Structures are given as structure tokens and as C-alpha cells.
């Protein structure tokens, strides 16, 4: 009230009068500063990740005998850092995982987006969310207790109890919800006019889904698959429990044999009896592998994001 009176006394209102008191503005600025500080932690954390990885990764790359990077297996405590072993293992596990997650995730996405009635959705969505919330150590236990003996060993008699295939199946199930939700989002973004046009031409629901909606949403679907691969590559505990590469692993291309992935190799280094010590460069190798893993997932995530953006732009 008193403010209005002052303004009235001074004559016509100017922009100056609307700025409020200096104290109020200073308080606003400092609050804004606090929130900006919170937001900038994201940049700080990114920088810290690169900083904490790059130094030791570089030291490893400089000091390691190049011959040690191409040996018969990954046995860091014996100075054998065969990168082939752990990265081929990583791709084998991710490959098996995608064989499971791609059809299941995309099928689920098409069903939820194009077929499911609201009532059915209300039951299926929380189910998928629960599956997404299963901690990976729990899936690791299940892979060792059930998937490996009851599925993998039944299908392939030569399979050992610890094997890459069981790890891949477990990881695949874990990433189904992620693939399904990204793919469903992209199909949801396809305008209804496209579906109605197809129905108007006499197409049935199946044809509309496969020939109209899926092609229209294809970049989102590609993004879903890429982000699935990225998650599969970074998954640790399932592989650490059931792939069987405790301590080290010989090179293998056979998914029914024990093997090692980049993530499980790091977990094994951290849980070994002598903790992360031993041979001179063992500790550094941990950071080197971590750095490669970080770069790989970063590139995949960025590519996936580009595909999502392309989808958003087209509608």
C-alpha cells in the first residue's frame, strides 16, 4: 500500500519503480547463484570422471609392454593384459543380450503402443517398471541359480556352469524394459493422422504398425537399440557372478565357456584376495579399462541421442 502511495506522489510509473527493492533483488541473485552452483556439479562430476580415469589410463598406456596387450588371455596379476579377451567377451555378452532384448523389447513396445487397451497397459507398465528396478546383483544370482543350469546347460550340453551365454541372457532380460520404453516413446510420438490415413486406405492394425508406425519411428527404435547395447556393455554384476572370469580368463569365442568382460574384469580386480595391488601395472590397468569403457558408452549414448533428436525433428 505504502509503495503505491510513493509512486503516485512521484508521478507517472516508470520501469525503475517496478524493479523492487535492492535487498529483494540481491536476495534473488544469491538464490539464483546457489541453484547455479548445484547445476554446475554436473559439469564438475564429468570433469572429475575424465580426470580420475585419464591420468592412470595414460600411465598404463605409456608404460605397458605392447606385447602384453596381445596374449592368450586377461591375467592382470601375471602381467597379461590381453584386451582382445575382455572386449570380445564384452561384445559376446552384449550380442547375446541384444538377441534377447531386441525382439522382446520391440515386441513389447509395439504391443503397448499399438494394441494394448488402457486397462491392460495399467497392469503391464508397472510390471515392466518392476523388472527395470531389479538390481543387477539379483539378476546375477538368478542367472547362476536358474538360467545357467536350467536353460543354457540344457540347450548346450558342452556348456560349463559359469558361461558367457547365461550372463548375456541375464543382461538381456535386464535391458528389455529400457529398450521397450525408449522404443514405445518414439512410436507414441508418431502422429495419429498417419495411422488414420492407413486405416482409411483399408490397412489393418498389423500392417499399420509394421509398415507405417515402425518406419516413421525408426530413428527412435534405432536409438532404443543403441542405448540397450550401451547399457549391456556397462552392466557389471550379472557378468561378475555368472561369467566365471574370477581373477582372469583365457581368450574365448565360445559363449558356452567362462569368459571375461571389461566390467567384470574391473570387478574381479577390485575383489581379488590382494585387493587392487600385485603386479606393477595392475592398478593402472583398472583405470585403462575403465577409460575405454567410459569412452565406448559415451559415444553410443551420444549417437543414440542424435537419433532421438532426429525423430523429434521429423514430427
Amino acid at each position: 500500500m505504502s509503495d503505491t502511495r510513493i509512486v503516485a506522489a512521484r508521478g507517472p510509473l516508470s520501469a525503475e519503480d517496478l524493479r523492487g527493492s535492492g535487498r529483494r533483488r540481491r536476495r534473488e541473485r544469491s538464490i539464483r547463484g546457489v541453484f547455479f552452483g548445484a547445476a554446475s556439479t554436473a559439469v564438475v562430476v564429468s570433469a572429475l570422471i575424465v580426470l580420475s580415469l585419464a591420468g592412470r589410463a595414460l600411465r598404463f598406456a605409456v608404460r605397458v609392454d605392447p606385447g602384453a596387450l596381445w596374449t592368450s588371455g586377461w591375467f592382470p596379476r601375471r602381467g597379461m593384459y590381453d584386451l582382445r579377451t575382455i572386449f570380445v567377451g564384452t561384445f559376446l555378452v552384449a550380442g547375446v543380450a541384444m538377441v534377447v532384448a531386441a525382439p522382446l523389447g520391440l515386441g513389447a513396445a509395439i504391443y503397448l503402443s499399438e494394441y494394448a487397451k488402457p486397462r491392460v497397459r495399467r497392469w503391464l507398465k508397472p510390471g515392466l517398471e518392476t523388472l527395470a528396478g531389479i538390481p543387477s546383483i539379483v539378476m546375477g544370482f538368478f542367472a547362476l541359480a536358474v538360467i545357467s543350469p536350467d536353460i543354457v546347460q540344457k540347450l548346450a550340453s558342452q556348456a560349463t556352469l559359469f558361461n558367457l551365454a547365461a550372463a548375456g541372457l541375464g543382461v538381456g532380460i535386464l535391458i528389455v524394459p529400457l529398450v521397450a520404453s525408449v522404443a514405445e516413446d518414439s512410436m507414441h510420438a508418431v502422429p495419429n493422422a498417419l495411422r488414420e490415413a492407413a486405416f482409411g486406405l483399408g490397412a489393418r492394425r498389423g500392417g499399420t504398425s509394421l509398415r507405417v508406425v515402425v518406419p516413421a519411428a525408426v530413428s527412435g527404435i534405432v536409438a532404443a537399440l543403441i542405448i540397450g547395447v550401451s547399457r549391456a556393455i556397462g552392466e557389471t554384476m550379472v557378468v561378475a557372478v555368472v561369467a566365471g572370469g574370477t581373477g582372469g580368463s583365457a581368450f574365448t569365442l565360445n559363449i558356452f565357456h567362462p569368459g571375461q568382460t571389461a566390467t567384470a574384469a574391473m570387478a574381479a580386480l577390485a575383489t581379488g584376495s590382494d585387493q587392487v595391488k600385485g603386479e606393477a601395472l595392475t592398478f593402472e590397468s583398472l583405470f585403462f579399462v575403465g577409460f575405454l569403457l567410459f569412452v565406448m558408452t559415451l559415444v553410443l549414448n551420444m549417437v543414440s541421442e542424435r537419433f532421438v533428436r532426429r525423430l523429434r525433428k521429423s514430427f
Partner: protein
Amino acid sequence: MATVVEIELTREAVGRALRGRRIRLGTVAFQALLLLTLLIAMGVLVALLGDVARTGLPVFQERGTDFLRTGYSTLASRAGVFQGLVGSLMLMGFVVVIAFPLGIGAAIYMEEYARNTRLTRFINANIRNLAGVPSIVYGLLGLAIFVEALGGVTGGLTVISGGLTLSVLVLPIVMITAAEALRAVPQSVREAGYGVGATRWEVVRSHVLPSAAPGILTGTILSLGRAFGETAPLLLVGAKLGFIATGGGSLLDKLHGPYTSLPSTIFVFTRQPNQEFQALAAAAIVVLMAVLLVMNSGAIVMRNRYERRW
């Protein structure tokens, strides 16, 4: 004559098309196939929960709550998850105190204050990339920064380092979910606040935050659940089995002692070769899943009850 036949034929064809013909096998099969993919995923979930319950529940029948109250032992008949539970609760404390305020604050900045500048887009890209970094890489960050560089403050491989590592891990998730909740508040609410002369912070505090609170809370609880089940990064920042400073000693002593967490305990049990420990692992998973279920269903109930549709 011919036209009458044609008209008849046309009418028949149109009628058939409108009524729909016989059920098409291919259509039904395709829909069934799609539903099957979902049912397989759900089936695995049910099988997983069933197997864990079947293996784990006998432990509770045999030992009751003793399993929750005893610590680690090399004897399967005496080993429990007490230290894991206590450790996990302490770790959650760190996440609540560190990751929640930072994450929500960042979300407020990104949604309410930031203009579309290059810096804003850079911060945004960082947040989204952090959310996709594998959890074990956060373990390396914790090892290099919290355990080694800040070892003087954290005491090295302690629950403080573990808590900080988990906080950093869920920070981007909290930021993203809180930002989504803020974005759902319609612009008109803010404009109404500005219209009566409120400053930005006043609008945020008295209108935007209360409206977005249920969504923010749901998101934070879900990210707390994520931190609760996380194992891999803790392997690198020292969650060991069986050691936690219990009894005696000040709080600071406890924080500086060795620690473990519930998922780490499960990992150790799982790696023991004999059958009794497999049952213990399953029983510990029952505890973990029960806590997660309570947290997640609480979050969902809260979302359904308090979420406002604009």
C-alpha cells in the same frame, strides 16, 4: 440387367467389408506374438521372484529374524545380514543428504532460471551423459577422488567414500526426474505468481515446488532405490564383508571404520560355493527386494494420490 447384378455384388462386397470377414489367422497370430514378448519378460520376472522366495524363505522359517540381527560368519548356519543392512542404511543417509538437495537444486536452476544459452545446453548434455555412464566407472571416480585424493577427509575405504560415490552416481538421475516434475507444472501457474509481483524465487517456493513436490518425491524415492541395489561401484570403494564398527565408539569412529552393504553381502554369499550360502544369498535378496518393493510401491501410491492433472 447387368447393372442390377453389379449393384448386388457391390452391396455384398461393401457389406462384407463393413461387417468384417472371418477372423484372420495372421492378424491374431501377430498380436499373440507381440503379447508373448511381454509375457516372456513378465514370466522371467515371476520366475526370478519365485526362485528367490523358494530358496530364501526356508532360511527365515528356520531362523526367524535372527538372520536380520546377526552379522557375517563363515558358518552358514550363523551368518546374517545385519552389517549389510546397517551399512546400506548409512549409505542411503548420504544419498538423501547430498544427492537430493543438489539434484533438486540443479533441476530448479535448469527449469526455472536457465535461459537457452550455450552454457545451459552444455550443462544439460553433461547431465544426460552422466546418467548413461556405467555404474562401475563411478566406482573408479570414487576410488581416485574420495578414497585417494580426499583420503584425509574420508579416511580412505570408509562408508563416507561409499556414500559420496553413490550420491554422485544417482545425482544425474535425481536431476532428470526432478526436472521432469518441474516441467509438468503449467506456465500459467508461474505467470499468475509474476502477475501479482512475486519474484522468481517466491514463485518457485510458494507455487512451483508445492505443485511439483509429489513428482519430485516419487523420482527421488526411485533413485534411492537404485542406490540401494547398486553393487558394482561399492566393490571399488571398499565395501567389504562382515566388518562394520558396531557397538561402542562414537559416530565418527563408525563412519571411519570398514563397512559393507546389503547388495555386497549378497554378492559375497553368491560367490560361496556351497548350497547353504546360496540359500542365504536368496534370503538376503528377499530382504533387499522387500525394502525396494516398499519404497517403490510407496512412490507409486504417492504419485497416484497426489499427482495433479493440469
